[in-house]
């Protein structure tokens, strides 16, 4: 299995820097997701690994070997494109055999490998069809078949699920994950969908404006985001960010939201609060599931790590499994996620409990996490 290493990798398009100082490692055999908003450079980075874009600065190592000057065919990577990029004038079988034909493999070996890939992906009955006769999901599978047939060192996926409908996307997500478990090959997956990244990847790399914001496991990113961007990008519904300051009120530390009344901070919670000087602007980050209603959450009653605010319900969204409540807080709106069903309507005034032990503090100026 193969490790991929990025060493100060950079890329310019004309005068614009699209990637800067990219440094991280993809451990051998891992499934890594590159995620970020549109234009953050994630697809460019993937194309640089494949050899489709020049590496302007730094080096990329695949299996310990710098690949900067290697042609794509010599890097031993396979790529699945967003629009599948199947060859329309070739049948499914010919599409899958193309890479082996280029590698000058024998006919017998090529056919064996093609049948093996077709069996893994359930494509046996489609081998003599042309891509135009296939559904989106089938095309996706052929694109994966074309990639696995050559048994590459690294698989690259460039937003392969974005052209599929929601149901098929969930199905293909599971299929790709199963494929990774079966093959154990290093896979790098580009997506802008954080749910895809969280559910599929073992390691997630978040990019913004050409820079790496954070690298970690999905839960590390979810539980300990290093800055406001990561905190807001990961998680659905997104993390609530309440602007305010920390002040001492009658000997107790309080969080004072903008335009709001002080909320006492229970001792031993919010370690980041101590790093914020009095009057200094910061953001209190709290995920929707860490805000609860008194009496509803069995864990929330006896504990001493809760602050309380009162807010008016603006919107109620019911998913069947959960209830999302959007309420007007002193500094904008907050979202609350209630597990199960809860009967409320817009206009109701409710008291919400903030679980400070699961909350985060971010510097308002730098956006960095404080703790």
């Amino acid at each position: 299995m193969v490790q991929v290493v990025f060493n100060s990798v950079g890329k310019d398009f004309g005068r614009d820097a699209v990637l800067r100082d990219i440094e991280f490692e993809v451990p051998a055999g891992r499934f890594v997701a590159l995620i970020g908003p549109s234009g953050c450079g994630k697809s460019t980075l993937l194309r640089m690994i494949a050899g489709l874009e020049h590496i302007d600065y730094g080096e990329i190592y695949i299996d310990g070997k710098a690949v900067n000057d290697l042609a794509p065919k010599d890097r031993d990577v396979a790529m699945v494109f967003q629009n599948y990029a199947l060859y329309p004038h070739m049948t499914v079988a010919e599409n899958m055999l193309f890479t082996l034909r280029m590698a000058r493999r024998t006919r017998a070996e090529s056919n064996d490998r093609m049948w093996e890939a077709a069996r893994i992906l359930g494509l046996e009955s489609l081998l003599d069809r042309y891509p135009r006769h296939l559904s989106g999901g089938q095309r996706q599978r052929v694109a994966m078949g074309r990639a696995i047939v050559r048994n590459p060192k690294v698989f690259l996926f460039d937003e392969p699920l974005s052209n599929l409908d929601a149901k098929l996307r969930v199905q293909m997500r599971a299929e790709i994950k199963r494929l990774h478990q079966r093959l154990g090959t290093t896979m790098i997956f580009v997506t802008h969908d954080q749910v895809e990244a969280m559910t599929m990847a073992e390691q997630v790399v978040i990019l913004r404006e050409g820079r790496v914001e954070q690298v970690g496991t999905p839960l590390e990113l979810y539980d300990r985001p290093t800055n406001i961007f990561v905190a807001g990008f990961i998680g659905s519904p997104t993390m609530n960010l309440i602007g305010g300051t920390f002040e001492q009120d009658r000997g107790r530390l309080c969080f004072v939201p903008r335009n709001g009344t002080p909320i006492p901070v229970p001792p031993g919670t919010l370690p980041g609060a101590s790093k914020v000087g009095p009057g200094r602007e910061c953001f209190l980050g709290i995920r929707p599931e860490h805000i609860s209603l008194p009496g509803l959450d069995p864990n929330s009653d006896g504990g001493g790590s809760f602050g309380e605010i009162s807010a008016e319900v603006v919107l109620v969204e019911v998913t069947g499994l959960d209830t999302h409540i959007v309420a007007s807080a002193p500094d904008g709106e907050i979202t609350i996620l209630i597990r199960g069903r809860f009967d409320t309507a817009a206009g109701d005034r409710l008291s919400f409990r903030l679980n400070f032990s699961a909350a985060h503090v971010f510097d308002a100026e730098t956006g960095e996490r404080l703790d």
Partner: protein
Amino acid sequence: MTSPSRPAHKRLPRRNRRKTSAIRSVTVFGGVVLLLFLVLFPFYWMVTASIKNFREISIERTLVPREVTFKNYVDLFEQTSILWHLFNTAWISCFVTFVTIILASMSAYVLTRFLTPTAEWIARISLYAYMVPSIVLIIPFYIGLRMAGLVNTHAGLILSYLSFTLPLGIWMMRACFQTIPKTMEEAAVVDGANRFEAFFLIAMPQALPGVVSTAIFVFILCWGEYLYPVVLINSDRLRTITITLDALTGGGQNIKFGLLMAASTVATVPILLIFLVLQKHLVRGFAAGGYE
């Protein structure tokens, strides 16, 4: 999506609408018939005149031949070297078409896939080059070819044809390659193909409708080219079909209509056959490339 409909108060009454629609259909149908007549009647006249005798062509001027004769064809093949001239035209047209397709596709591919900032300018220059009338270039061409010893040779003729077929070919093939997604060639490159393999095995098969329409255009241009052969070729053995047709007009003094129409029919048949065989690709090429 629903199309925006006209407000109710602006709609015509149903009877009026039906009347307007009928008038429109009749006008369109009439226009199509007129157009077809204008296009097909000369063909009809050419073919029927070729099987009429001298009296019917020049004196009685019948619309439908009363007596069918193939004497004009017999005379044509006996008195002229039309078969040889047809062969000259065919091989020169085929060769120029082949060279144009190879060079124009490769150039157009480079213009769409690389050289992006300057490609637009190069493509425009090639179009302007095509738009320059042959009559303007003929004297410099003649001088250049004479210096190279290529006057009165097929090589010289081929070079002169390429001067206008290549710019047209590049422009048409460029429009074709612009419609083909780049990602397929990128996939091929990642799959282990080199640039040439990606071009010949992936891009070219997809450009086939564009190749066919470009080839037909170029072939027809070469087949019907008159000015360059009349200036550059002076021996009978090297002549092309357009010069044969010109010779049969007798300089306007003694036009042999029967022979001329038979020769015109013979000269048209290969083009018609090619068009009939390849029309499916040609239509697909128009649809895919959006050629102007």
